[in-house]
């Protein structure tokens, strides 16, 4: 248990560093996982070179999905949009520092899904995930 719910995850869940809305923003997208009842929105600001200057999230869900969102929006600041497109499940697991079974993996990946859908559109994303 201590392994699974690393202090980092519980901390970020209880007191997220990057929670709230960004207004104005360049990208924003909201999605949910009705199976779990998770809801997540991510807002992103970029500069003229398509480098992320700020990002935040808003939503509710389990510790894994919320901590993953909090860590992800922090991680992408300073990155090119093209780099975000290349991010994968492994990057998220690395941020969280845990192994996840198939059910909880969905919780962890909701943040990446919302982020990519916001930037590239959902159709392209679905293609990539299948």
């Amino acid at each position: 248990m201590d392994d699974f719910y690393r202090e980092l995850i519980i901390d970020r869940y209880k007191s997220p560093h990057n929670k709230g809305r960004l207004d104005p923003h360049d990208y924003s997208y909201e999605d949910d996982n009705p199976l779990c009842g998770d809801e997540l929105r991510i807002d992103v600001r970029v500069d003229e070179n398509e480098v992320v200057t700020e990002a935040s999230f808003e939503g509710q869900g389990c510790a894994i999905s919320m901590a993953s969102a909090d860590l992800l929006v922090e991680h992408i600041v300073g990155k090119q949009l093209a780099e975000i497109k290349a991010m994968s499940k492994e990057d998220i697991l690395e941020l969280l520092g845990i192994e996840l079974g198939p059910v909880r993996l969905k919780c962890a990946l909701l943040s990446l899904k919302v982020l990519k859908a916001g930037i590239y559109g959902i159709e392209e994303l679905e293609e990539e995930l299948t």
Partner: protein
Amino acid sequence: MTSDAKVHALDARKIRSDFPVLGRETQAGVPLVYLDNAATSQKPKMVIDSMTHYYEHQNANIHRGIHRLAEEATEAYEAARLRIAKFIDARSWREIIFTRNTTESINLLARSWGHANLQSGDRVLLTEMEHHSNIVPWQMLAAERGLVLEFVPLTDDGMLDLEAYRSLLERGPKLVSFTQMSNMLGTITPAKEIAEMARAAGALVAVDGAQSVPHMPVDVQDLGVDFMAFSAHKMLGPTGIGVFYGREDLLKEMPPFLGGGDMIKRVQLDGFTLNELPYKFEAGTPPIAEGIGFGAAIEYLESLGMGNVHAYEQQITEYALDRLEEIPGVRVYGPSYKDKGAVASFTMEGTHPHDVAQILDNEGIAVRAGHHCAMPAHEKYDILATTRASFYVYNTEDEVDRLVEALYKVKGLFGA
């Protein structure tokens, strides 16, 4: 006739020894506490053995072969059907149609009876506590046929609002289809009264018995219902087989569901003649081993006595509700134990059900987290998801204590 003359306590500890999986650990030194029975129950050794015996000694296709194995297999399979008919007090074994599960049974009703009897503007009355399997088939048919679906609302304490039901009946629904026990709230609905009111209003009555038939005496004649659906896997039997019960006179008039072998008497290139009941609704090779296993599960439950099963579960549910409610921040949904099956769905302040379930899993405790295929009922109480502990005859008060202890650990970790 299914209620027991004498109710006596079950010996859960003795019962446990009949279930091989209950002896396992989930990690070294962490024994399994299985509290996900509303999703599927565990299987006693005699059920597993009955299926193995069939495969090792009798495996053959049924109803066709004129050889020893085929005859023995057919006999065993049909004996199960007869046992099930008696178990729910059907008038005849011909009223017992084998399907894959409750879901398929309700789809059969919607596709066969619904197609033949419902036209644009006709009403079907459901309730807000239905499992998705008793909502979606009707929504599909409604979209196709232009039906009007209406829902009996829930009260704050998780009961059906019978006054509202009475006025909805005045609009003249053709069918009332409702669950006898909610898999989320645990509510045991007054099925006999609901059926009586529906009949008086000229509607037919279908019951989702997925949670009731496994846990209490159910007598279709006494209840006065026309159709009933349930699944073997929730009542100590295997997955892959369920029952669609229907009154024989209604079944006779209904068109077939799936087409193919077994459901016909004769086929020519320009048409076919239907087989008799129940085979008319059973196309293709059926789940034979599963049918035999289902029969064994019923035999096991009969040996306990369904009245005893229900009494024991009420006792453990009362204990569980008392213990859960003593934890600060925990809220249990649904009625008090008297009107409730062996289900406790709850939320824990500040902690998502997924996290609760995950931490319980680390303690060897299996529960369900999510919306339990009852999204409308969750919406009603303005919650996204719950954690559900559900009990069966082999669960003990010690296991409830372990659940409560583990929930205090969750609180410690999340500091709620």
